[in-house]
């Protein structure tokens, strides 16, 4: 049953706590949007590289490799894509100030474990320790340590955007310079594949659909059987 599955998952992440964390994440992003990069100080090129590495590592936790490919087996460049497009443009509304703030949060996410009882930086932790740290951050477990909001921002947006990218079939269905966005053969299974969605139509399917539906009959006007309108 779905309920059983959800209960099972609740052992990993409590829905209620998770949504509460979303509130805090949103609050901090709003603050970052106003305060800008000053919130975390100026970012160096090394900081940006670290932020990308942290983002990639988190995404590998979110979309693991099992009987389907996971983040680690997606195309080269997917981390840059997820970070710049889904975090920068979608989640943060294209605000460069908020994006810089998020990169700063990722850097902090990497450094914080040493002060929270872990042996090393996040990037140098083993897989089990990484997922324990990531889960604790996502559920607000470090709030009492004063890191809660910063870490939950990083963890939440990593999880959200990794899954958004996973579902978007990056980049196989996006021949963006092609007139018809032709479907390319793909060996990569994505979220849509698992859920059984066929993906956008290609030229041949479009042709068949046009033949079938292009002049499909319609019923003009609205439904006046609704007595309330």
């Amino acid at each position, binding site marked *: *049953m*779905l309920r059983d*599955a959800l209960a*099972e*998952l609740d052992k*990993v*992440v409590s*829905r*209620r706590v998770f*949504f509460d964390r979303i*509130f*805090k994440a*949103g*609050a901090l992003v*709003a603050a970052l949007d106003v305060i800008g990069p000053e919130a975390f100080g100026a970012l160096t090129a090394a900081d940006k590289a670290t932020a990308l590495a942290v983002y990639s590592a988190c995404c590998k*936790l*979110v*979309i693991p490799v*099992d009987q*389907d490919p996971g983040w680690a087996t997606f195309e080269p460049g997917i981390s840059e894509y997820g970070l710049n497009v*889904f975090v920068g*443009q979608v989640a943060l*509304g*294209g605000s460069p100030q908020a994006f810089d703030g998020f990169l700063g949060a990722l850097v902090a996410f990497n450094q914080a474990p040493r002060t929270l009882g872990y042996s090393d930086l996040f990037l140098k932790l083993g897989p089990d320790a990484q997922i324990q740290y990531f889960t604790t951050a*996502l559920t607000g477990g470090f709030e009492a340590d004063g890191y809660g909001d910063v870490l939950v921002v990083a963890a939440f947006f990593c*999880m*959200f955007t990794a*899954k*958004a990218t*996973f579902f*978007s079939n990056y980049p196989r269905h*996006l021949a*963006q310079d092609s*007139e*018809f*966005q032709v479907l390319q053969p793909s060996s990569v299974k994505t979220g849509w594949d*698992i*859920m059984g*969605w*066929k993906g*956008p*139509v290609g030229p041949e*399917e*479009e042709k068949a*659909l*046009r033949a*079938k*539906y292009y002049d*499909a*009959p*319609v*019923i*003009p*006007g*609205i*439904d006046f*059987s*609704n007595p*309330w*309108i």
Partner: protein
Amino acid sequence: MPDTYDVIICGAGAGGGYLAGEIAANGSVLLLDAGPHVGASEAMAPGVGSPSRRKFSTQINLGRYIPDSTTSGGRGNPFFAYPIYMDQSNPVFSAVQREPRVVGGGTFLNVGAWVRPRTVDFEGFAQETGVRGWSKQDFEPFFQQCEKTQFVHRTPRENWNPGSVAYEKAAAKLGIKMYETSTNKFHCIFCGHRLDAGMPCKYDSLMGTAQTQIPKAMAAGATVLDNATVLKVEITNKKATGVTYIRNGVTTTATARKLVVVAAGAIGTPAILYSSGVWDINKNVGQYLRAHPGIAMDALVPEVPGGGRWNTDRGYQWNCYHYPIDEKGQPVDVIIHASAGFPAATPWVAAQVGFFGQAYKDLMRRYPQRVGAFHFQLKPSIYGRVMGGVEKPVISYPVATVDGVLEPKILSDFTASIRTSAKIFKEMGAIDMYPNPNLSTALFNQTITQLVTTAGALHPQGTCRAGASRTNSVVDTNCMSHDIDNLMCCDASVIPHHISSNPNSMIMAIGARAGAFVRSSILNTPSKNLSSGEAVQ
């Protein structure tokens, strides 16, 4: 390019775009929009689309659109993203309110479902602000005109998606009356590509103003400037004289001989008026924000009649809707659209579920068959507010109290609607659903509160509302400012009171009505037969 026009319209969405098509043949018109005009130079063919629109429809789902040869900063972002504060118990939290920024506005992105307001809505207009001339009878010819120009129709049931068909049949068994949802599409091929409410149709089958009225305006000689962000309306001696806007880094002031129309939506319009100093004169600017809290309800229904998967056949459509009915036989203030399912509702819904890792992938494999319904609560008992100017408007829509309790009417109405949908899903064979009305009251209420406060304010309206007096409103019956001569508002902001549907149909009717007024009273040209709107060819 001239810098003086008879009419300048700020915003090319449902209101401004429709108005432009109505008046461009009667005077010189400048139509400004902050977003791109996708495929503007290419031949328009409704139901076919153009390469650049196809590119746009794909990229916009990824949150960006980058036109070729783009150099100006900020150009191409398809949405404004405003902070919106909804939970008074957590005053530092803001959700993100996304408003479309593209020529065509909300109609470019989101007009697959055409539902008219209820009769009670029109009665509410006069009760709320004393506005005259806003009765159902007054607007009827304009709705009919819009339904003709926008090719509004219903789809025969053989082309409904399986979710809508099954939901309607199950409702009928329970004695629940469903109504057919009209749509304004043209030559739809049911590609299933439009999976997100914020995603345009790449074949231009959605008949928004970008496909109908704006091309009509351009053919009549109107000038359309995309990527032009309006900074303020120029006002001299309480008279609107022009508009200052920035485009490609260059700030320009254009002069309006007869009229300035602000049609930037329920968030953008009060922001422009604030920056123009109108708020200093009339404190109702930005007040009285109304919106529709929304909840997506998902049900696990393993068996699809005839086989297959929910929502993947014949695309993502809301084919039918209903209202929950109370014990007195009256509709509860919620509209329920059938057939919005979890698998169909884009990456965004799935991505926001707070699970990840191995268990998350297992969940998708084990339970792929979900179908759903989308619930809009139509009349919350609260007002919100838009504050600040064009550089950074901030929205307050306090659906939760300082104690974190959801506004009682929203909660009670959603409780009724979810119970009604749950009965229908159970009749369809659902083995589980979310939100589940069988949860404990405390947990159910908490779930509803969480869903509402994280969703933003859907269908914002009423922030520069029409009324009988400047003491309770910003514009008059004809959408003309009470305080500033030659200034009109024409979008969702003028709606005096909640309406019980997606506001696109109402906004277009307002645009059509404003067009008749502008032609006859501003441009002093004969008003054409209102029922003779040209159908799409």
